[in-house]
């Protein structure tokens, strides 16, 4: 049955008021939308990161559902352990309810330090949903580069200097890596439209076995973004094809959105301070061109995998 936003408004939130995330941060938006339409009881685990530290400052706790955090690189292993205990205790009749398991990690805890634990959990086939709130860098430690950071971004460990224009490398494609695990559900999306995350995560959680959802979610401090532009910047990420939205269900690729027009990636870069150095001078222009080439190539790849063609309006 289709999910209706108006039915969800009165629903009790899994994460409640009083957390200390920044105004405009994408992470709490991801969490709220992700868990809003889930009908079963949920147990949440999270990798170390902004979300975890800002929601569980002792003796307070913003979570209305059971919550476990233990370390940075092990959210995949933690969710495996919880699910393993559930399966064992349910078999013995010590637990009777159906419970679902969700792990949250930033891109640091997911693309980088936690990739092995996530890969292991996916390969073993535990029944869980892993949601990466991907702000494209290490924000809990202060805007360092990660393997999710886009080319040209100014970060605190790949700063835009006199010789080097920010991060040189392009990010790894974690969504494709997770799809290559041949798990039943993989999605890449962002918070440009609330129903996107609500519906996709509901589907992910209801799918038996491992599911992975990669959600682009801005960090206003790192992206140097006006907090009110959270949704607008995510829309631009989709419109410029910087962040294609798609699902891979049992190996079948399905494109979520095709922009009507060819919008240059520069439109996505402009509102963000982390790309400001690229908007002036020849070096910056060359980086933008290289970034556009990467975007076009990735878009072509996604179109091909989805069996789609794209004919933008002139």
């Amino acid at each position, binding site marked *: 049955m289709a999910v209706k936003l108006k039915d969800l408004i009165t629903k009790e939130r899994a994460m409640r008021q009083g957390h200390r995330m920044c105004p405009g941060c994408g992470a709490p938006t991801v969490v709220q939308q992700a868990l809003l339409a889930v009908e079963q009881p949920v147990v949440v*685990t999270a990798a170390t990161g902004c979300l975890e530290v800002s929601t569980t400052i002792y003796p307070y706790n913003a979570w209305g559902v*059971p919550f476990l*955090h*233990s370390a940075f690189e092990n959210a995949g292993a933690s969710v*495996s352990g919880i699910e393993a205990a559930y*399966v064992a205790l349910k078999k013995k009749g010590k637990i009777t309810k159906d419970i679902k398991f969700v792990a949250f990690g930033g891109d640091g805890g997911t693309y980088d330090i936690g990739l092995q*634990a996530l*890969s292991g959990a996916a390969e073993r086939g535990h029944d869980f949903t892993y949601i990466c709130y991907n702000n494209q860098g290490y924000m809990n430690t202060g805007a360092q580069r990660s393997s999710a950071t886009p080319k040209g971004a100014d970060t605190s460990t790949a700063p835009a200097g006199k010789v080097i224009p920010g991060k040189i490398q392009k990010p790894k494609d974690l969504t494709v890596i997770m799809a290559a695990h041949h798990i039943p559900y993989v999605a890449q999306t962002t918070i440009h439209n609330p129903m996107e995350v609500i519906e996709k995560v509901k589907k992910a959680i209801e799918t038996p076995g491992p599911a992975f959802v990669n959600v682009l979610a801005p960090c206003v401090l790192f992206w140097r973004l006006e907090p009110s532009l959270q949704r607008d910047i995510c829309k631009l990420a989709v419109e410029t094809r910087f962040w294609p939205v798609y699902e891979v269900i049992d190996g079948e690729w399905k494109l979520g959105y095709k922009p009507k027009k060819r919008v240059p990636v520069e439109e996505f870069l402009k509102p963000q301070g982390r790309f400001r150095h690229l908007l002036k001078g020849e070096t910056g222009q060359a980086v933008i061109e290289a970034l556009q080439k990467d975007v076009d190539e990735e878009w072509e790849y996604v179109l091909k995998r989805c069996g789609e063609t794209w004919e933008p309006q002139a």
Partner: protein
Amino acid sequence: MSRKDITSGNWAVAEAMRQINPDVVAAYPITPSTDIPMKFSEFVADGLVDTNLVTVESEHSAISACLAAAVSGARVMTASSANGVALMHEIFPIAASYRAPIVFGLVNRSLGAPINIHCDHSDSMAERDSGWIHIYCEDGQEVYDTMIMAVRIAEHKDVLLPVFVCQDGFITSHCFEPVEFMDDEEVRSFIGERDPLFPLLDIDNPVAYGSLALTDYYFEIKRQQVEAMKHVERVYREVAGEFAKKTGRDYPVVDTYKTDDADHIMVIMSSAAGAAKDTVDRLREKGHKVGCLRIRLFRPFPAKAVVDALKGAKSIAVLDRAASLGAPAPLFTEIKGALYDAGIHIPANTYVYGLGGRDFFPHNAEEAFMDLINNNMSPEERYLGLRE
């Protein structure tokens, strides 16, 4: 009815695990503990246990999954050695702080480099401040018995701490010797069912594990762990006492061998106590009043029992199977500290032996005893069985 069989230290652990029938085992193979998950996975494959076996992709994930399962309310066990233990290090203090009663078969092996698969205690000694209970075993029988007792100690409401059950890699883990096994039902009635406090899976009473506690609360939380450790020795004695009544096998926190009237005592841990006790017998035949004190419970350190055993001696030799590079060896430090606190000054020699699996022979033990007998005392660290 109990039964006797010839088995290895590793298989004794696996057999104890079969009888305990834990809810979750998450493990990753590493020499010399590999036999434990291997044998246990046969039990799983043959349907002899109800355990959910999680064959993880690293030791870090093994202990992370164990911790998550334990706080979820499951009874949880695992095993590892050396580099595997070192890779798990980050999670050990977290498991202790979450009061997760994991029982861990630790098969002692030296830490690299050079890479070496044989026994010393450098792996577990590196974890001595992680908040876990440490019990060191001399032989396969003791390893088997201790695994069973450890479940009760770990899960006791006054304790709720994880336990390392240590045995010497290859020397004990791969040595086949007679072990008396309890009846399955006897084991299950001894350990009972786990009754978890604040399980994560109690959906109706949600709890959060893993809060951020800064300058305002961290210290108080650590103080509670100190308090839990203070309860361990009492609970240990209760559990070991009950176990002795059932099986006739008694395991005090320290094992004293002819120490009552001894002038010279060797303090040692784990399998090397065999050679030490044998040497005690031979030297006693020659008229030397010598004895051996084996430390079984190392964390919390049973200072009173140690002092009681040593206080009448004229000199002691402390043998460590691990070095603390740049400082006195770990067991030696503990022994000196316990005696100092008791206001007792006994001349003590410190020896490091058996690193990287170097054999410890009765003649090595005799060398140390003869230093005591000949009053060849010095605070300088000495080495047994080393070419220099």
